[in-house]
């Protein structure tokens, strides 16, 4: 996992605070529209599909698949060597950027559509970042 003290950490806003409250409890929270049932990310207090303000916070399963990535080769103070910057597809539909942890950072180890599961990296009292790791044989 990266040396998080050397990363630009998120500053929550009123509309995203629930997400960061969730990760602090090791939960990945999404939002779902009460009207059209659309599940979406990143957080906002209305549905981007139908504009309804009636939305609910839901807990994601944490299951995802690897959608795409690069392996950044340029030196970054928070990382020991080349590292993957990935976009994953959550089981619920939305995609999010992340790093893939507990895996070699190589094209051989990182295969598109491989199953992943969420894990969490605590930075400080306020911020815990969601990461993903290979789901292995569990699925």
């Amino acid at each position, binding site marked *: 996992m990266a040396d998080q003290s050397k*990363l630009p950490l998120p*500053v929550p806003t009123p509309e*995203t605070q629930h997400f960061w409250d969730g990760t602090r409890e090791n939960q990945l929270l999404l939002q779902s529209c009460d009207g059209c049932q659309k599940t979406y990310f990143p957080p906002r207090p209305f549905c981007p599909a139908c504009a309804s303000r009636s939305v609910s916070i839901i807990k994601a399963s944490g299951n995802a698949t690897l*959608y*795409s990535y*690069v392996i950044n080769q340029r030196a*970054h103070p928070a990382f020991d060597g*080349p590292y993957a910057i990935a976009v994953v597809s959550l089981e619920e539909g939305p995609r999010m950027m*992340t790093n893939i942890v507990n895996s070699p950072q190589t094209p051989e180890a990182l295969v598109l559509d491989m199953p992943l599961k969420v894990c969490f990296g605590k930075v400080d009292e306020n911020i815990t970042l969601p990461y993903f790791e290979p789901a292995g044989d569990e699925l």
Partner: protein
Amino acid sequence: MKSNSIAIVGAAETTEMGLIPNTSQIMLHADAALNAMRDAGMKPGDIDGVACAGEVPTAVAHYLGIVPTWVDGTSVGGCSFMIHVRHAAAAINEGLCSAVLITHGESGRSRVGAGQYRGGGRSSLAGQFEGPYGVMGPTSMFTIPFLRYMKETGTTLEHLANVAVVQREWAGLNPRATHREPISVDDVMNSRMIAYPFHILECCLVTDGGGALILVSAERAKDFPQKPVYILGTGESVESPMVSQMDRFESSRAFKVSGNKAFEEAGIKHADVDHLMIYDAFAHLPFYGLEDLGFCKPGEAGDFIMERNTAIGGKLPVNTNGGGLSYMHSGMYGMYALQESVRQMRGVAPAQVKDAKISIAHGVGGMFAASGTVILSNQEF
């Protein structure tokens, strides 16, 4: 916009290009603007509309001594200038102004008077949900969709490398290109890896420079010294400021919306197009451009380029100045794509496409975040 109602009568790049350590960013705007005004035989008093990105129109207008009745500071990345052309056409047709100056100047490499890059900050959605994962600007983000594109289309790393090879051939014909020496697919694939699967020769240059355009109504266009270049159609769109939130990774929605709108306005067919500029910040952009504009079916652009259709002597010459990969890239390259389209339509490009009558300049902004398309011609339709 109303097709054929507007023409470009002034066009120029900065006097120098590449490494310009003795010139500030605002002066790069002015240098390009002065060259474009000379090209059009105009003075600042003849200009009453100003559009720019990188600097604000207030700064550019005052620096040049222009009193505008219309300004446009649309700044959505490197395709902003395509969008300025579209907005300027509408403004002139509506009578808001009569002569629009569009400027770009960027001390992208020397960073003289360039100011700070204005990201969204750590509380923006990008700052919260992309920033913490080690992103380091476009090389590490604009490139992310491509492995998905490869898997969905069967496109290979050789196809990607070949884009850089073909564009270097074009650059070899251009005395102003930054890199002109020929390269091979092996050279590209053996060059330094920047962000797998992208090598340094598949990433754009980082240079200093600028460019400017002057637009007036087509009715007035013949009163100016240069051969008019008419605007047949334009398009624009935006998608997401976060690359991770693009709808699909094997296609750009903004490209499609912008391209479709431009073709619709111009009323032309793909077979009518003689010359095409596709903003190539990275070597995969021409694949998206060719496919999302409808020149190739999904997944066929890699072979289309490999079969030399876009190369010297090919049926659809693409990025004939050498592109962002070999010509220059100061950060907001769209202006240089437009300049090359204008040169081709005037018949004065270093790598002139013989008898070319219709050219398209297609731009991207941010990382697939925005798009602008301009269809130009040297003919009055």
